[in-house]
């Protein structure tokens, strides 16, 4: 990230992309650098700064993509990043040399407010009018030449999604290097100049620098300015001086709290007067017509629930054929490799029962992941995501959260990690913490395999596809149902929030770009497959080994002779007849023997012993030792349970001959001893309990570490303990209540 190119004389040119949320900064960043930053049609996709290299004829430049903001008076952590970058407060990146100001051309006046604020920083600027295509669509006309003349800086129309104007932007940067240009300065009234002078003189910064113009504005206009920390004087003294300075404005008849916006907008109105022409008789646009239905007071809610339902139905039912294909592929590979390794039984077992079974059982769920991400990406890119926040806000505000919690929570349905990062757009620190705390309850895609396996094996065959889809929908609902009261409790008794302000822009609907949707799916798929090749692969080997060892071959003859003796006693045949049958690999007796052998050995393995030791904890939930041990093994990552179960059943020889799937093995699995002997382990209440356990439990090392990063260690520990306890309780209740009914 720190290239020293010969063409750049002293240091790399630093260029920052600034603008309102959702104007297309990240899209332009991608066009200019060739990278693939995440974009999406809602305000607040980018929440931290990202740097990339932009190639220019004069050498490489460092381009910085930033979160969007409406003004320089920062409220949320992501907006603060913008201000810190602009003021050069990060050690690694100094002040930018050039600002690419990205405006939404369809909403020029509003966008230029920030530009006018940024101009006080006295950094050369280029004005980019992105979304140029939407100007005509919204019935407007912009007189570009007039605007260029008024602005005095390069003004460049672009269409980010079509990569149009990218070369012009680069050319403008080169021109600006030769001759820096600035936005026309705002003419402050005298009272304002007096007030600023007062602050500059009376409030020196640490290190005796004078306050910059923009810092003075922040102190003067903001209610809780973070600039106070940079001052040499105490917060109280600063406050006294600020009050004095505001008096100058008041005497001039201005309300200091609204003066800034008023003065900037007056300046902007002067600059763009006559530039934008609006067609007054424009027919209602597409966005408006769609909103008539989707934000309708009655239909809006129904449409929302319906849409969510369709998503989960699709995830459940569309993937079937592809899953079968992967399953078939797994069996085919096992059949191909098996004979080649017949000479070395241990290696054969490691490869077939361990690696292929474990990794294969996991990979089967790839189609579901792809479908889920396709939907999430469609929701984001179409512009519906922000509407969902609008519809849900009331429910969220009731429990102390805020509509802006919706997007992080919905993304947590894909994965809690980006979800928790997305909470940075929430201004109020308390509702942000509460959102971080409940985000892991949203049913992430890692839980999907567990649900699909359980539902496919035990719900669908008995109750049919309708109930299967419904169960999947409900499993995704359980977490939410727990999250709401949790958030209520946390904000009510632990963080004690006041109701939070909530202001957000609803973007225009847009046809999602298939390229972006495809890319999201590709990335999610790639990550999933990479996981299979790394963490799942290693854990698989560990689990296989702890299930395979200790193994003493000296025991086999004992088991064998006991087996033969038992069969003779049962009157099945003479000892010789039984021995001959045992030699025949296709005989039923042979299969029964291998099942016994497998389960005896697994019972004695390390994992078997651990499982038996912890099983009493899960007894009230009806889990046997195999489920218990799989639950434990999946603490680092939820998906591991699938591989673990796969290996346990494969090593135990339980995998069905015709239908080599884990699904069938689970169905055939029976209690071996005790009063429940010979009855199935997996009854509907056990399966529901298992799914509820996974829905609520904190089984993800990565999520725990992102909580530590975003909220601190205490929150992470609290989250882990709370979720684990809740999961156990949920499983026990499901089982205990369920067995009364089934």
């Amino acid at each position, binding site marked *: 990230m720190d290239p020293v190119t010969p063409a750049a004389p002293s240091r790399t040119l630093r260029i920052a992309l600034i603008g309102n949320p959702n104007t297309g900064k990240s899209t332009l960043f991608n066009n200019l650098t060739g990278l693939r930053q995440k974009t999406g049609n809602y305000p607040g996709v980018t929440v931290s700064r990202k740097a990339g290299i932009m190639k220019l004829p004069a050498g490489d430049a460092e381009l910085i993509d930033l979160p969007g903001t*409406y*003004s320089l*008076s920062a*409220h949320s952590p992501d907006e603060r990043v913008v201000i810190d970058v602009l003021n050069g407060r990060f050690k690694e990146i100094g002040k930018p040399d050039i600002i690419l100001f990205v405006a939404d051309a*369809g*909403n020029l*006046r*509003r966008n230029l*407010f*920030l530009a006018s604020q940024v101009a006080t920083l006295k950094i050369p600027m280029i004005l980019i009018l992105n979304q140029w295509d939407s100007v005509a669509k*919204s019935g*407007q006309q912009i007189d570009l030449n007039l605007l260029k003349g008024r602005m005095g800086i390069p003004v460049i129309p672009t269409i980010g999604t079509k990569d149009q104007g990218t070369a012009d932007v680069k050319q403008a940067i080169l021109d600006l290097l030769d001759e820096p240009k600035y936005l026309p300065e705002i003419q402050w009234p005298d009272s304002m100049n007096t007030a600023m002078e007062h602050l500059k003189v009376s409030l020196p910064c640490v290190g005796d620098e004078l306050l910059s113009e923009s810092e003075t504005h922040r102190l003067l*206009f*903001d*209610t*809780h300015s973070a600039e106070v920390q940079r001052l040499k004087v105490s917060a109280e003294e600063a406050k006294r001086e600020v009050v004095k300075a505001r008096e100058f404005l008041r005497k001039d008849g201005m*309300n200091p*709290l*609204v003066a*800034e*916006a*008023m003065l900037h*907008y007056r300046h902007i109105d002067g600059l763009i007067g006559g530039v934008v022409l609006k067609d007054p008789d424009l027919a209602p646009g597409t*966005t408006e017509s769609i*909103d008539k239905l989707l*934000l*309708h*007071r*009655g239909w*809006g*809610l129904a449409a929302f629930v319906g849409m969510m339902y369709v998503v989960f139905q699709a995830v459940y039912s569309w993937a079937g054929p592809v899953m079968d294909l992967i399953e078939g592929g797994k069996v085919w590979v096992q059949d191909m490799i098996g004979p080649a390794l017949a000479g070395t039984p241990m290696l054969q077992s490691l490869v077939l029962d361990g690696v292929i079974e474990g990794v294969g059982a996991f990979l089967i769920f790839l189609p579901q992941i792809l479908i889920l991400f396709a939907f999430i990406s469609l929701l984001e890119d179409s512009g519906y995501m922000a509407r969902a926040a*609008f*519809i849900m*806000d*009331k*429910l969220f*505000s009731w429990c102390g959260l805020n*509509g802006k919690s919706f997007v992080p929570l919905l993304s947590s349905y894909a994965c809690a990690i980006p979800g928790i990062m997305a909470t940075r757009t929430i201004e109020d620190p308390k509702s942000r913490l509460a959102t971080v705390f409940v985000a892991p309850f949203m049913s992430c895609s890692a839980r999907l395999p567990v649900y699909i396996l359980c539902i496919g094996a035990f719900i669908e065959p008995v109750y049919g596809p309708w109930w299967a889809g419904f169960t999947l929908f409900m499993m995704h609902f359980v977490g939410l149902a727990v999250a709401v009261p949790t958030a209520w409790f946390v904000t009510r008794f632990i963080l004690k929030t006041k*109701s939070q*302000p*909530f*202001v*957000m*822009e*609803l973007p225009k609907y847009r046809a999602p770009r298939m390229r972006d949707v495809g890319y999201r799916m590709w990335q999610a798929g790639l990550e999933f497959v990479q996981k299979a090749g790394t963490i799942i692969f290693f854990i698989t080997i560990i689990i296989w080994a702890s299930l395979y060892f200790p193994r003493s071959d000296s025991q086999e003859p004992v088991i064998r002779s006991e087996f033969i003796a038992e069969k003779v006693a049962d009157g099945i045949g003479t000892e010789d007849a039984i021995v001959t049958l045992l030699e025949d690999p296709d005989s039923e007796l042979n299969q029964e023997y291998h099942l016994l052998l497998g389960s005896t050995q697994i019972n004695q393995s390390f994992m078997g012993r651990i499982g038996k030791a912890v099983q009493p904890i899960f007894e009230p939930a009806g889990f046997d030792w195999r489920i218990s041990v799989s639950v434990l093994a999946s603490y680092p990552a939820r998906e591991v349970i699938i591989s673990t179960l796969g290996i346990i059943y494969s090593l135990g020889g339980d995998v069905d001959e015709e239908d080599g799937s884990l699904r069938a093995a689970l169905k055939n699995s029976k209690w071996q001893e005790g009063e429940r002997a010979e009855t199935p382990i997996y009854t509907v209440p056990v399966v529901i309990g298992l799914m509820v356990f996974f829905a609520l439990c904190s089984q993800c090392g990565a999520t725990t570490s992102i909580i530590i990063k975003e909220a601190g260690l205490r929150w992470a520990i609290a989250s882990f303990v709370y979720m684990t306890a809740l999961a156990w309780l949920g499983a026990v209740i499901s089982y205990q209540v369920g067995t009364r009914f089934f």
Partner: protein
Amino acid sequence: MVFLRVRVDKDPFLRVILNRTLSSLLSLKLGQKARVTEIRAESHIDQRILSLGIGANVIIQLSKVAPLGDPIAIEVDGALIMLRKSEAQGIQVEPI
């Protein structure tokens, strides 16, 4: 201090007077347009409303109410902005 404060929204007589001169954005009907007369700036949220371009003399339209009754969405300069009723209360308008 406490005794002198009159809850204007509760007092029927004062409310009549108030409604004639000033009325809050919330008194608009769905789809109705109005000119902003004043923003009662009290906290940083009002600053945010201002930075979104909702200031004196700007024409706004109450264009959506969420299915559950809150928040609302107003149209300003072709952009749709949602805010909670509690925040919208401070925006004084004059219907046109």
